[in-house]
């Protein structure tokens, strides 16, 4: 398996850029290489004998293990024979039928070719000093055969290098990420180059590739049937800088997969243009892009407004821009399709609106930084099955990412922070946002990007179903790393939680929570309420401690909490849940409640009647019946509860005490009132009443069994458990 983290991707991106620059060097120097080599051959040829009346005499020049080192290329192990002859009084022909180069390399590009063979004829005009060749063949193993037609004057050069059936795979391999290996790139090549007597030169390189392919060993990073063209126009002065380059690329067919992302170039043809120049001070080569653009038709358009490089192609900075364009195709391909398996609800997502961005990206071994803003404009978003909808979303998201922040220069960080507060502000706003039964009124939330984080400077009013919630101030740190953390203040007075409950329950229960000044803390994948929450419900209070949401970025977040309660009016509670009437007050607690995938995983629940209750303590037959069925699966009335109800409506009780635990999918129910070796769930009153005794204290009830019991109670048509 290949694991590709963000760091790897950055490295790969940088490597691709590094290699792209080297590729241009390669193409240009290859032309110079060929012309230089011809000059070398001519320079090593001995003067031929004079022509006599019988025609030209041929001489042979034997070369054995010679080498030629040029600033841009090296030829080593040159061996073979060059025939030298005259065709007329002013022309000398140098003919090779197999001049072999053990190694031909371009040190600046990392390219190396072994066992290159050269065949053909070069004619030397002894008067003008021009070298001319029409058909010099270069056989390069793993690359193909190149044909050179050129004229090399004392001060000018012009020529054409062409190849019809080459495989650029090996030549491109050093320019691709290592895991890709050697691609297969069948291509035709045309290079036209010329240099005038004033030293000015220009070259045009045209590569047509068809059905190119690449893949890593696991075929997870791969491209197939890639068909397109690459055109490079370059100009400059011989041996001098600057050099002007323009690069045009088009891919009109084929498809590519990059881990979870898939793209078809037949559906979204790719075109790009890049204009840049290379400069040097004699030691360091600097490059800068004047302008550029890349476009995936009907999907994405990116512009490059400029760049500057300290050393080309390392340590470069780019100014990128996403012109205003529809957001839907981008989210469809890069979000819905790529993450739909993990988050199936994405397949139902519908969106429209606009996206725009400006970003400064810095690449290099010492610094990796992205600073800029991304705008979502007039976006509508809907997931119908989940009842989620946002209308008129306008989001200016400032971004300030740095891979390796400076840790040893506090002053530096401070100055950057000040810079951020001035220029890296953003705002999140919408006109209408609905999430199930919750309705969020229009919002405007200003936020500021800080180094690898965000800050909400002030309190912002959020209205949820007409209720006021104050959000902020807050901060978020290390947002781009797994170690993200942060806090945000939240404040609300008597927030009605019935809107957060299922609709059926929300109609009969109206719990209210008071949040005087709560702080939410994010720690990696966990959100924790730092202070207890107090909820008023059924005339009593529930205090929730340690409320946390775990795995918040996963498809299945979990809820963990502890809670205690007191003074809960049992009559109102049992009426709401239709369990059967019980009067009195309830106290108790739940510890280690963990809810995952919408169901409880574990808890330790204690329910006790309060001794000092201001009301009578009574329990109905139906409640006793249901309690017994849930606890022991047997009714004490053996199905006669309906009949008994005619004579007895309620029984007085002295105490209710139940402890219920869930662990490993098994419930245990224990009575907390223990007298004379018996364990009571409900203890009768002093004079009369009904005891509910736990006959089997070691009884463990399987999850499936418990569900069946609850369903049975529901089917009985009397009480209903919700």
């Amino acid at each position: 398996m290949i694991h590709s983290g963000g760091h790897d991707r950055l490295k790969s991106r940088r490597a691709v850029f590094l290699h792209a620059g080297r590729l241009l060097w390669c193409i240009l120097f290859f032309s110079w290489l060929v012309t230089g080599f011809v000059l070398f051959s001519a320079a090593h040829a001995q003067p031929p004998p004079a022509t006599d009346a019988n025609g030209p005499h041929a001489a042979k020049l034997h070369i054995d293990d010679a080498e030629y080192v040029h600033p841009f290329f090296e030829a080593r192990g040159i061996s073979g024979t060059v025939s030298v002859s005259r065709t007329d009084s002013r022309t000398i022909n140098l003919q090779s039928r197999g001049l072999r180069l053990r190694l031909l390399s371009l040190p600046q590009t990392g390219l190396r070719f072994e066992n290159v063979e050269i065949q053909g004829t070069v004619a030397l005009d002894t008067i003008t000093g021009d070298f001319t060749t029409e058909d010099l063949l270069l056989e390069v193993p793993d690359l193909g055969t190149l044909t050179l037609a050129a004229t090399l004057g004392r001060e000018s050069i012009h020529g054409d290098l062409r190849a019809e059936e080459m495989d650029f795979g090996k030549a491109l391999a050093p320019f691709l990420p290592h895991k890709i290996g050697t691609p297969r790139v069948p291509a035709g090549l045309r290079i036209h180059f010329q240099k005038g007597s004033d030293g000015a030169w220009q070259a045009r390189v045209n590569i047509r590739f068809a059905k190119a392919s690449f893949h890593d060993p696991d075929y997870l990073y791969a491209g197939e049937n890639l068909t397109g063209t690459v055109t490079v126009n370059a100009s400059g002065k011989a041996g001098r800088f600057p050099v002007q380059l323009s690069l045009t690329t088009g891919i009109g067919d084929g498809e590519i997969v990059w881990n979870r992302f898939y793209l078809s170039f037949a559906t979204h043809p790719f075109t790009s243009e890049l204009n840049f120049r290379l400069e040097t001070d004699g030691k360091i080569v600097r490059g800068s892009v004047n302008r550029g653009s890349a476009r995936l038709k009907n999907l994405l358009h990116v512009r490059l407004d400029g760049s500057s490089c300290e050393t080309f192609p390392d340590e470069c900075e780019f100014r990128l821009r996403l012109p205003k364009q529809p957001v839907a195709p981008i989210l469809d391909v890069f979000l819905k399709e790529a993450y739909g398996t993990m988050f199936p609800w994405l397949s139902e997502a519908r969106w429209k609106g606009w996206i725009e961005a400006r970003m400064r990206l810095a690449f290099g071994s010492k610094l990796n930084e992205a600073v800029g803003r991304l705008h979502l404009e007039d976006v509508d978003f809907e997931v119908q099955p989940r009842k989620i909808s946002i209308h008129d979303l306008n989001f200016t998201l400032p971004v300030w990412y740095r891979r390796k922040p400076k840790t040893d220069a506090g002053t530096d960080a401070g100055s950057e922070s000040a810079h951020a507060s001035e220029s890296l502000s953003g705002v999140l706003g919408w006109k209408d946002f609905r999430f199930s039964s919750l309705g969020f009124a229009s919002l405007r939330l200003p936020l500021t990007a800080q180094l690898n984080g965000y800050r909400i400077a002030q309190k912002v009013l959020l209205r949820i179903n007409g209720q006021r919630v104050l959000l902020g101030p807050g901060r978020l740190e290390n947002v781009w790393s797994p170690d993200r953390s942060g806090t945000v203040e939240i404040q609300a007075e008597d927030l009605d939680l019935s809107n957060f409950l299922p609709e059926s329950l929300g109609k009969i229960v109206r719990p209210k929570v008071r949040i005087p000044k709560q702080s939410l803390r994010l720690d990696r994948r966990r959100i924790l309420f730092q202070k207890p929450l107090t909820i008023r419900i059924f005339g009593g209070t529930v205090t929730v401690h340690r409320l946390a949401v775990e795995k918040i970025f996963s498809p299945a977040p979990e809820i963990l909490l502890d809670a205690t309660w007191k003074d809960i009016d049992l009559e109102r509670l049992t009426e709401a849940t239709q369990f059967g009437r019980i009067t009195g007050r309830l106290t108790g607690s739940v510890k280690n409640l963990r809810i995952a995938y919408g169901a409880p995983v574990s808890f330790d629940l204690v329910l006790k009647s309060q001794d000092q209750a201001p009301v009578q303590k009574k329990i109905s037959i139906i409640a006793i019946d249901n309690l017994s069925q849930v606890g022991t699966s047997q009714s004490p009335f053996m199905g006669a509860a309906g009949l008994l109800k005619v004579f007895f409506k309620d029984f007085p009780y002295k105490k209710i005490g139940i402890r219920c635990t869930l662990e490993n999918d098994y419930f245990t129910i224990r009575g907390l009132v223990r007298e004379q070796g018996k364990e009571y769930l409900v203890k009768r009153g002093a004079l009369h009443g009904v005891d509910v005794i736990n006959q089997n204290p070691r009884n463990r009830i399987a999850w499936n069994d418990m569900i069946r019991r609850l369903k049975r109670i529901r089917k009985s048509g009397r009480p209903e458990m919700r």
Partner: protein
Amino acid sequence: MKDARWTPRVLVLLLTMGLLSCVTINIYFPAEQVEKAAEDIVGEIRKQSQDQEKPPAKPDKESSLPWIHRWIFSVRSAYAAQETVVSNAAIRQLKSRLARHDSQLSPYFQRGVLGEGADGYVVILNAGALSIKERAALRRLVNMVNADRRALYEEVARALNVNLNQVGRIAQVFAKEWQRTARQGWFIQTPDGNWRKK
């Protein structure tokens, strides 16, 4: 005098070293329980997966069989009431998800595209036989299955009160069960890292 001053210190040092060398750090790992859990959970996932792959039963034909034949030969679905060593809502949900996705992965196992790794996770072995679009879809599916398997091992660790840094060991125990219940022709990874066809 000098020796006399140093002797107690050396003795204390030696004694401390001796004591430290006698300390045995026991890392709690209930191997038998984990093995039982792996057997139950993987067995159930594979059974559910195979049930999902089967075409829907034809009740007319089955009901035409004499009842005694049905009683003797038919396999009953009794897993709902089986007691496993560890289970909870999360494990049940993960089992259900893994069973559903296992049935989606099984054709790829059969074709040799996927293999059961020795570390308890699914490995893409040879995606070259697939179309490029299928590769992307398979990658997404395998990522999700492996994330679910990881979550399952963590749940088992929690249920058995095993430290989460032992999840790797739990995964290796589960790997044996995934491989044991793998079908004929599926690729499985041996502990030395090599692959063989079952």
